[in-house]
C-alpha cells in the first residue's frame, strides 16, 4: 500500500531549494560551503505604487504617449520631475505632469504612468549548513547536506536558526512559566507537549529564537501583537503530546544547531502576495559534505515523494483524531476492510502501538521514513 510519506529521520540526505521572492542577485556559487545564516541572495521587491494620471492634466483624451512621455520604464525619478508634457491650446504654453514623489517608473500605459514609490530589499539566507550544489539563475540555489530531518505539522513565525536547548524531560511535559533563564537566550528550545501565550511571551522576553513543541493552540496564529519567536509543532493543532519518537531524535540533537521553519501549509493557499510555500520543518545538518552530486534534489518543501510501499513492519504515524501523531508499526493487513469505532468501513491495517493493536484505516496513516 502506498501511503503519503513523512520524513522523520536522524540521518537523512537533505536537499533544499532557497528561492528569492522575485528575481535578484545570487551571491554564492556552486560548490561553495555555506552556513545557515549566510546570505545566498538578495532582491528588491516593489512594495507601493502611485498611479499618475497623464491624460486628464494634459487635457487630452486621445494621447500619443510616445510623443508626450519623457521617461522610460525602469527610470528612477525624483519628486517633481516632469514625466510627460504636451503643447497646450495657447501657443508656446506647454502643459506638463510631474511626479508627486520619487520612485521608479514601473509601467507606462495609455494615459497613465505607474510609479513604484517604495522598494523593500529582501535577503534570503541559506537556512542550513551545507554546500551549494546548483545555482538557479538569478532566482536562488539548491543546498545539500546530511543530517536530521523532521517534517512537522504546522507552525508560525517563519524561519529561525540556533542551538537546541531541551527544557522538558518528556514529550508529554509542558514548559512551565519561570522555567526559562538567560541560558535560553538566542536558542531554540525543545518544549515538549504544547505552549500557551503566556509562555510564548516569556520566551520572547528571554530572546528565545524558536520553540519546538508537539502542538499549538490555533489561537496563537492570531496573536496581537505578533510574537517574534518562531514556533513549529510536530503533530498539529490543539493540545497533543509530541511523538516520543520525534522527541527522542530531538533530544539527541541537544546543544546542536538546528534550523526550524514555523509555517502552516493550510494557510498557504491564501493569496497574500509572495508566499513561502515551504512547509514546517526541523533540520539539523552535520558537517557539510563536498558536492558529490549523489543527492536527489528533493525539496523538503513538500512531503517526500519516495514510492516504497508500506507493508508489515513499516513504521507509520496516525494523522487523525485523538491518536494524532502516535507512531507504531504495521502488524498485519486484513483482506477485507474493517469498521472504525464510528462504524465507517474502510480498508486499513492493524498497527502495533506499544502494547495495543488497533485497526487504522490507511487514509488515517502516513509512512515514516
Amino acid at each position, binding site marked *: 500500500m502506498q501511503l503519503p510519506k513523512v520524513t522523520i529521520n536522524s540521518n537523512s540526505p537533505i536537499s533544499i531549494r532557497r528561492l528569492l521572492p522575485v528575481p535578484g542577485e545570487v551571491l554564492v556559487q556552486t560548490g561553495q560551503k555555506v552556513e545557515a545564516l549566510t546570505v545566498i541572495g538578495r532582491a528588491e521587491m516593489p512594495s507601493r505604487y502611485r498611479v499618475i494620471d497623464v491624460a486628464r492634466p494634459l487635457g487630452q483624451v486621445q494621447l500619443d504617449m510616445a510623443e508626450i512621455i519623457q521617461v522610460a520604464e525602469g527610470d528612477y525619478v525624483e519628486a517633481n520631475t516632469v514625466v510627460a508634457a504636451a503643447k497646450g491650446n495657447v501657443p508656446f504654453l506647454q502643459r506638463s505632469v510631474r511626479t508627486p514623489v520619487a520612485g521608479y517608473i514601473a509601467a507606462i500605459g495609455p494615459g*497613465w504612468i505607474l510609479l513604484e514609490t517604495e522598494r523593500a530589499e529582501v535577503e534570503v539566507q541559506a537556512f542550513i549548513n551545507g554546500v551549494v550544489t546548483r545555482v538557479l539563475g538569478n532566482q536562488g540555489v539548491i543546498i545539500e547536506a546530511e543530517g536530521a530531518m523532521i517534517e512537522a505539522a504546522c507552525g508560525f513565525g517563519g524561519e529561525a536558526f540556533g542551538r537546541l536547548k531541551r527544557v522538558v524531560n518528556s514529550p508529554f511535559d509542558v514548559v512551565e512559566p519561570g522555567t526559562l533563564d538567560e541560558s535560553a537566550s538566542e536558542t531554540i528550545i525543545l518544549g515538549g507537549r504544547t505552549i500557551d501565550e503566556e509562555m510564548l511571551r516569556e520566551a520572547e522576553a528571554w530572546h528565545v529564537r524558536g520553540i519546538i513543541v508537539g502542538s499549538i493552540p490555533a489561537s496563537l496564529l492570531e496573536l496581537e501583537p505578533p510574537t517574534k519567536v518562531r514556533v513549529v509543532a510536530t503533530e498539529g493543532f490543539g493540545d497533543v503530546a509530541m511523538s516520543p519518537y520525534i522527541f527522542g531524535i530531538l533530544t539527541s540533537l541537544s546543544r546542536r544547531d538546528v534550523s526550524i521553519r514555523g509555517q502552516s501549509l493550510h494557510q498557504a493557499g491564501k493569496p497574500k502576495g509572495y508566499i513561502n510555500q515551504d512547509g514546517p520543518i526541523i533540520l539539523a545538518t552535520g558537517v557539510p559534505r563536498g558536492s558529490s552530486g549523489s543527492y536527489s534534489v528533493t525539496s523538503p518543501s513538500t512531503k517526500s515523494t519516495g514510492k516504497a510501499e508500506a507493508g508489515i513492519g513499516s513504521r507509520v504515524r496516525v494523522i487523525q483524531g485523538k491518536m494524532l501523531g502516535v507512531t507504531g508499526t504495521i502488524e498485519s493487513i486484513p483482506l477485507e476492510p474493517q469498521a472504525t469505532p464510528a462504524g465507517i468501513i474502510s480498508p486499513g491495517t492493524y498497527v502495533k502501538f506499544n502494547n495495543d493493536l488497533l485497526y487504522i*484505516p490507511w487514509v488515517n496513516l502516513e509512512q515514516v521514513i
Partner: protein
Amino acid sequence: MTKSILAAECGSTTTTAVLIEQVDGTYTLRATGQAPSTYAAPWEDITIGVQEAIRHIEKHIGRPLLAPAGWPITPQNAQQGVDAFVTISSAGEPLRVVVTGLIQNISLASALGAAAKTYTQVTKVVSLDGTQSQEGRVQAIQEGRPEVILLVGGTDGGAELPVIELAQVISMTIRLLRDGELPTVVYAGNTKLRTDMADILGPVLPLRSVKNIRPRLDVEDLTEAQLELEQLYLQKKMTKLPGFEKLSNWSKYSVMPVSQSFEKLIAYLGQHNDLNVIGLSLGSRSTTISAQIRGEQPTSITRSDAGVGHSLASLLELVPIEKFHRWLPFDLSPEELYNQLLNKSLHPATIPMTDEDLMIEQAVAREALKLVVQSLVKSPNPQWNLMIGTGRLLTGSPQAAQAALVMIDGIEPCGITSLALDKNGLVNMLGAIAIVEPMAAVKIAAQEAFLNLGTVVAPAGHGTPGKPALTVKIALGEDEIEEREVLYGSIELIDLPLGKKATLEVRPTRHFDVGLGQPGRGAVAEVEGGLLGIIIDARGRPLRLAKDDLERQEQLQHWLSGLGISYATSESDDQQQ
C-alpha cells in the same frame, strides 16, 4: 449501441469506477471499485488511482478491462474490455479568479454568480463603487494572483468610461506580474466596448470577450461567461493534473468536471419527472448544489471554499466557529473544535475514528450546505419534492439517518420531500454516462443509483414547545391506519418500508404551514417508503437551536434519538468505565 460503459470519477480524495452493462437488454450496474486519488504526492499520476479502482472491478467480474500497458480496452470483445470509457474529475485546485466590475449589487453580483458555476476561487473583488483608490485596486489584483480576471460592467449601450478605467487598471497591474503564466481576461461587460478592450488589454494578455452578463439592468445572462470559465478551468487546472493527458488519451470522450455532470443529472431528474429537485454534492475540495425548479432553467453553485476537507481552512474563515459548534451534542470547547478542524484541514483525506469525530464532520457538512444553498436559492425556500445527497461524508455515513439529518438540517426543506442517497457512488457520473448512452443513464438513475431514505414532512413556522405541531395519519390500506400527534420541537420516524406506498394525511395546527402557503391547512399525499420510513420533522422552520450550551446539547440529543441515531461520546465511555 454501447453495451458496456466503464466510468470513473477522480475526486480530491477518492477515485471511484463503475461498470454498467446491458444484461438481457437492460442496463445494469455490474460492479464498482474505489481507490485513493493519486494526482498528488507520493503518486503524482491521476491514472494510478483510476487503474486501481478498475482492478477492483476486474476482480469482481473476472474479465480483464485494462490492457497490459494500463489503459482500458475499448471496444469490448468476447473476453475483455468495454465499449466505452468515460471520466469525470473534481480533483485539483480551483481556478483563481479576480472579479472586477462597476457596481457591487449589480454586475459584480452577476459575475460572482457566473464564477460559482465551476471550480473557482474568487480571491479578490475589485469594484469602482467602493472607496478603493486606484493604487488599492492595482494592489488587490496583484494580491489576488489571478489565473483569470473576470471583467464586467456597463449595460449594453450604458456606462463606458468606468469600464475602460477598470481595463486600464488591469493593464497596469499585468505589467507588474513577474512570475508565472499571464492571467486571461474574460470580458463580459458592455458589448460596445469590445474593441476598446482589445486595444487596451489585447496587447498585454489573453483576452476573451463573451456576452454581457448584464445586458440590461433587469436582465442577467450568465451562460457565455460561465461556459468560458468552465473552459478555462479545464485548460488551466484540470489538464494540468499529473497524468491527465494520459487519462484523456484513454477515451474519445473528454474528461468532464464533476459539477457539470451532476447538474445534468439533477436537471434531467427534475424535467423528466416534473419535480422540484435539489442535489447536494459534498466534496472534500468543494460543495456543489444543483437545483431544477419546475418551469425554470437548471441552476447550480459550486463553492470551492466550502469543501469539507481540502478547503476546510477557507470554510473556517467564512463561517464562525460557533456555527459549527452549535451542532455538537456533546461538550467540547469552540477552541478545541477549531483546533480539530484545522488538523482535519492538514490531513483532509482522513476519516472519523470515533462518533465524536463523525459528528464534528457532520457539523461541518451542515454549515457547508447552508452556506452554498443561501447563494443558490433566494428566499423563500422552494418546496423540494426530491432531495439527493452524494459525497463520501453522506454516502459513507454508518447510519442512514445521520446522512438524512445532515441533509435536512443543511437545507431545511419545508413541506413534503423525498430523500435519496447516492447508493453506489455513481450519481455524479450519470451526466457523463448520458453523453455516451442516454438510455444507460436513464435506466440506472431509475433503478440502481439511489437509496431511497424515505419522505420528510416538515411544516414551516413555530409553536409552543411541548404543544402539538401537527397530526399525521398514515394509511397503508383500509385496515392499517396509524395516527400520531407530533409535538413542536421534535423529530420522529414512522415506519414505512422500502417499496411500500401509503396515503399520508397531514393536519398542521394553526401556526404551521406544510407548504401550501396557508398555516393550518391540511394536505393529503401519496408517499413512498424508504430505509428510514417517514420522518416527521416538527422542529419548525427556520430551525431554532437553543442558545444555552447544555440546553442545546439536550435538544440535539433529543433529535438524534428521534431518528434512532445511536452514538457514543467520550463522556459516555467514561461513565461506562
